[in-house]
C-alpha cells in the first residue's frame, strides 16, 4: 500500500494572532486587478505599496505578511555534536552518535553557533538575552531521530530587533523607499535530517547529515504587506548574514529557508485567519507565493468562503499554493525544558567576572566591537565617498564582489566615480548577466577596465570606441585596451582639419538636412548629422567637437 505524501507538521505559531471572521465584501466590490481600472475612482497615494496593492486598498483588503526564516549557521560542526557540517556529502556520512540519537548521548553546545546568533542579533538591533534557555519540542517524524528537537521556546537568545530594507516604487530604480520590519526573536535550534519519499517502492529514505546542524530561526512580526516587501526584506537579511559570515544564506543550498504567514482583513477589523506557506526555494518564488496566497485568500473571502488555518505548499511550476496533507490539525508539541543543557549565560564587559577564563564565555561587547560594516552602512559609505546614487549602491552590493570591483577600478583610474558607475552597472554588469557569469569570473579585470576608462578620460578614444574595445576585451584574449585600439585604429581623430573635411563631406551629401537646419536649427537633424559623421569616422570622432564644427559650418 503506497503511502500518501508525508509532510512535516506545521511548527507552532510564532506569536498569538487574533483570529477573526472577515466580513465578506459586498458583491458589487469586485477585486480590481493590476492595471485594469479602479473600482472606486479614488486616488490614494500610498508611499509604500506598488500600484497593485493600491487597488487592493480600494477593494479594502489589507494583506498581512510575517516570515519565519530558518538560517543555517556557518560553522564547522553541528550545534550540539562534533560532526561536520557540509553540503551534499554522501548520505549519512556526517552523523555522530548523538545525531543518530543513540541512547546515552548528550548534547554539548557549540560556541561558534552562539557567537553567530549573537552577531546576527546585534546586526538586527536586537536585545541579546544574557540568559536564555533550551527546550525540547516533541513530535514523531522519520527525520527527527530523538523524537524531539532542541530549540529555544521559553527564552530565546535575542529579541525585539528590526530589519530595514529598501524597495523601488513602481519598478523605477530612481525612487527607493526604506521600510522596516520588526524582528520578534532569534532562537537557536537543531535542523532536522532529510527524508525522501520513494512512493514507487513504498519506502522513505532518511539522510541524517543535516540532523543537528545549527539553525537560527528569525521570526518577524507581521509588518509586511506584499510579496515584494517580503522578498526585499529577505534579500537584505541574506546580505547581512553574508557580511557577518554567520551564514552563507544560499537558498538553493537550503541554508536559508523561508516560511510565510499570510492573512488578509478589512481595515479596522481584527486580523484574518492566517495560512502558512512553505516550500519556497528562492527569493523570487517568495514574492510569487506570497502574492498568490494574498490573491487566493481575497478571492476566497469575496466569494463568501472562509480561510482555514492550514499549511500550504508553494508549487513553483504552477505558481500557486496547495494545501499540505495535515494530520490532526493542531499539534501539541509537549514543550519541556531540556534537562541536559544548563541555561546559556552570556556576558558583556560589565558583567564579565574578573578571573573568568575568556575561552569559556561569550562576551557580547567583544563581538559587537568586531562586527563588520553592515550593508546599509557600506551603501551609505559608497554614496558619500563616491557621490553615486543610492540605488546604485544597492546594485553594487547585490552582486557578489561588484562593490570591490568598482572600488578597484576607481583606484586605478582618473575617471570620476559618477562616470565609472555607468560603465560598471550598464556595461560590465549587463555583459556578466548575459553570460551568466559572476564578478569573480569576469574576463575583464578591474585593471583592464580601468585602463580602458583612462584612455577614454584622456580623450584618446570616444565612448563609442570604448564600447567596441570592451567587446574585444570580453573575448578574454589577454590584449590590453591600448593594443586593441591600435589594432582596430580606433583612436580619436585629433586632426581638426581632417575632421572638418569629413564634416563637410557629410554636409555635402545630406542636402535635405542642411536645408532643414538652415530653416530651423532642428536638434534632431543635427544629431543625425553628428551620427553620420560618427559612422563615417567609425566612432573615432569626438562628438562635442563634431557638433561644434557642424554648427559652425551650417551657420555659414
Amino acid at each position: 500500500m503506497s503511502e500518501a505524501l508525508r509532510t512535516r507538521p506545521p511548527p507552532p505559531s510564532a506569536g498569538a494572532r487574533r483570529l477573526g471572521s472577515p466580513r465578506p465584501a459586498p458583491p458589487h466590490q469586485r477585486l480590481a486587478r493590476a492595471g485594469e481600472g479602479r473600482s472606486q475612482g479614488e486616488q490614494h497615494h500610498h508611499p509604500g505599496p506598488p500600484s497593485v496593492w493600491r487597488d487592493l486598498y480600494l477593494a479594502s483588503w489589507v494583506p498581512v505578511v510575517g516570515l519565519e526564516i530558518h538560517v543555517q549557521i556557518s560553522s564547522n560542526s553541528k550545534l550540539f555534536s562534533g560532526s561536520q557540517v557540509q553540503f551534499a556529502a554522501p548520505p549519512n556520512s556526517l552523523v555522530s552518535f548523538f545525531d543518530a540519537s543513540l541512547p546515552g548521548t548528550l548534547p554539548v553546545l557549540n560556541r561558534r553557533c552562539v557567537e553567530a546568533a549573537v552577531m546576527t542579533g546585534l546586526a538586527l538591533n536586537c536585545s541579546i538575552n544574557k540568559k536564555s534557555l533550551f527546550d525540547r519540542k516533541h513530535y514523531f517524524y522519520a527525520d527527527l531521530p530523538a523524537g524531539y528537537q532542541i530549540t529555544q521556546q521559553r527564552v530565546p537568545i535575542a529579541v525585539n530587533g528590526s530589519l530595514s530594507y529598501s524597495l523601488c516604487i513602481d519598478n523605477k530604480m530612481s525612487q527607493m523607499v526604506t521600510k522596516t520590519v520588526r524582528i520578534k526573536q532569534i532562537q537557536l535550534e537543531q535542523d532536522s535530517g532529510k527524508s525522501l519519499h520513494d512512493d514507487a517502492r513504498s519506502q522513505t529514505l532518511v539522510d541524517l547529515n543535516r540532523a543537528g546542524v545549527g539553525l537560527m530561526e528569525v521570526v518577524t512580526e507581521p509588518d509586511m504587506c506584499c510579496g515584494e516587501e517580503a522578498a526585499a526584506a529577505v534579500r537584505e537579511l541574506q546580505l547581512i548574514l553574508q557580511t557577518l559570515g554567520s551564514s552563507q544564506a544560499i537558498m538553493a543550498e537550503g541554508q536559508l529557508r523561508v516560511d510565510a504567514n499570510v492573512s488578509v482583513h478589512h481595515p479596522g477589523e481584527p486580523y484574518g485567519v492566517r495560512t502558512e506557506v512553505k516550500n519556497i526555494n528562492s527569493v523570487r518564488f517568495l514574492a510569487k507565493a506570497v502574492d498568490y496566497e494574498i490573491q487566493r485568500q481575497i478571492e476566497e473571502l469575496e466569494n463568501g468562503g472562509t480561510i482555514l488555518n492550514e499549511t500550504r505548499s508553494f508549487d513553483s511550476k504552477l505558481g500557486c499554493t496547495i494545501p499540505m496533507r495535515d494530520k490532526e490539525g493542531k499539534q501539541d508539541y509537549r514543550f519541556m525544558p531540556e534537562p541536559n543543557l544548563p541555561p546559556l549565560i552570556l556576558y558583556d564587559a560589565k558583567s564579565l567576572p574578573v578571573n573568568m577564563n575568556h575561552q569559556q564565555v561569550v562576551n557580547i561587547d567583544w563581538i559587537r566591537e568586531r562586527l563588520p560594516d553592515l550593508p546599509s552602512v557600506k551603501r551609505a559609505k559608497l554614496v558619500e565617498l563616491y557621490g553615486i546614487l543610492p540605488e546604485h549602491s544597492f546594485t553594487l552590493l547585490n552582486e557578489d564582489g561588484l562593490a570591490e570591483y568598482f572600488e578597484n577600478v576607481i583606484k586605478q583610474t582618473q575617471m570620476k566615480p559618477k562616470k565609472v558607475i555607468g560603465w560598471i552597472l550598464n556595461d560590465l554588469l549587463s555583459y556578466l548577466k548575459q553570460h551568466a557569469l559572476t564578478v569573480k569570473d569576469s574576463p575583464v579585470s578591474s585593471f583592464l577596465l580601468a585602463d580602458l576608462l583612462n584612455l577614454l578620460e584622456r580623450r584618446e578614444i570616444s565612448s563609442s570606441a570604448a564600447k567596441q574595445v570592451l567587446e574585444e576585451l570580453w573575448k578574454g584574449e589577454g590584449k590590453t585596451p591600448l593594443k586593441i585600439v591600435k589594432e582596430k585604429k580606433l583612436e580619436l581623430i585629433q586632426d581638426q582639419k581632417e575632421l572638418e573635411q569629413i564634416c563637410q563631406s557629410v554636409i555635402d551629401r545630406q542636402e535635405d538636412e542642411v536645408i532643414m537646419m538652415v530653416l530651423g536649427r532642428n536638434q534632431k537633424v543635427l544629431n543625425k548629422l553628428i551620427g553620420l559623421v560618427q559612422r563615417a569616422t567609425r566612432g573615432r570622432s569626438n562628438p562635442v567637437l563634431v557638433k561644434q564644427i557642424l554648427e559652425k559650418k551650417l551657420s555659414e
Partner: protein
Amino acid sequence: MLKGYISPYNATVVQKLLDQGAVLLGKTNLDEFAMGSGSTDGIFGPVRNPWSYSRQYKEKTPPKSSSENEESDWVITGGSSGGSAAAVSSFTCFVALGSDTGGSTRNPAAHCGVVGLKPTYGLISRHGLIPLVNSMDVPGILTRCVDDAAVVLGSLAGHDPKDATTIQDTFKPFELPNLIDVRKLCIGIPKEYHAPGLSSEILALWSKAADLFKDAGAKVIEVSLPHTRYSIVCYHVLCTAEVASNMARFDGLEYGHRADMNKSTESMYAATRREGFNDVVRGRILSGNYFLLKQNYENYFIKAQKVRRLIANDFVKVFGSGVDILLTPTTLSDAVPYMEFIKEDNRTRSAQDDILTQAANMAGLPAISIPTALSKRGLPVGLQFIGHSFQEKQLLTVAKWFEKQVKFPMIQLEEVKRHDCSVFQHQKSVSFL
C-alpha cells in the same frame, strides 16, 4: 527494545574504569529501563537476592511446607540495579555500577547487604548512561565496603566535556582516614522519614544508630524536612514526563528492535514501541505525555518543578543550620519474597519503596546506604546517610566510621564455605597507592 543492541561507544564511567585497569566481568540484570524497585521487570527475568541462599536466611526462615517448590521463598534484591547489587553481594566482582534516579542503587544495596553510593548530581558523567530522568539520574557505585567505594569514586568523578551537566571544578580523589572522630559532627534525624509502613525493626535500628553517634560524642538532633511527603507525587510527574521525552527516540529506525510493519512510518513506530516496551515503560510514557500536554503543563509539570524546589530548599535550610549529615533508614523493611512482591504492580511498589531515597535525587544530594544489621528473618537492613552537595569525603568518612561500629556480618553462602574464609574479610579490598 534494545535486544541485540551493542553500543558502539563506551560510557565515560566505563571507559574510566577500563583506563584504570579494571576488568569487565559482565553486564548485570535490572528492571527494564531502570523502572522499578524490585529488579523483577527485566526481559531476562527477576533477579534473586543472594541472601535467599544464605545460611542466615535459611536458618531464620523455614521453607514453606510444600517441599516441591524450595525455590518459592527466594527474596527480591530491590531495584532497579538489583543485578549489580547481587553481583557484589555474592562476591562475583569487586565493584558494580548501577544507576540511581529515585533510589535504584541504594535500595538494592540495602536489601543485599552491600554499600550503595549515590554521588552528587553533576559529579560523575552521565555520558553513556541511558537516561531515565535526566535531571535526577546519576551513575551509582556498589561495593562491599566504604573504602572501595571511595576508590571507585576517585577514578570516576570529575568534569566530562561530553556531559554539559558535570561541574567544571577539578575533583581531587581522596583517601579516607582510619581514625575518625565524630565528636565535632552534627547528625540530623529527619522526623518525616518515620514514614508510614516503616517496620518496627528498622525503626529500632535507626534509633540504635542515632544512639551510637550520641554515645561517641556527636551532636544528634531531630530535624524537619516538611515537604518530604510530596516527593513521591512530585517525582511521579517529573519522572514520567522526562521518561516520555527520553523514550521518544526508540522508534526502531536507527537501532534496536524494529517491528515487521511496512504500511507506514507511523504504524511501524507504533508497533515497534508496543513490542519493544513492557507495560511499565508504556504506562510511564503515557502518563508523562499527559502531563506535558499544553493544557496540563502548568498544573502538573510546572507545579511539580516548584514543589521540587521546596523539597530541595528543605535540605538547604537544614544543612545551613549546622547539620553535617542526615541519618535515615534506606528501606521500609527487609527484602520481601518475590511471590509477595509481585502481588502489587510496579507503580505501587515503586511509590512505596522509593519514599526514603527519592528526595535525595530531587535535591541532587549525595547519599549512601550502609549495611547495618540482619533482620529477624536473617536478611540485610541498611541505613542511609545524606550529605552536603559535593561533600562526598565527609559523607564517606562518617559512613566508614559507622561501618566499623556495626560490623555487619559476612554472607554465608553454603557453596562458598569450602573456600578459605580469610579471603572474604570485610576489610579494605584494595590498597590505595
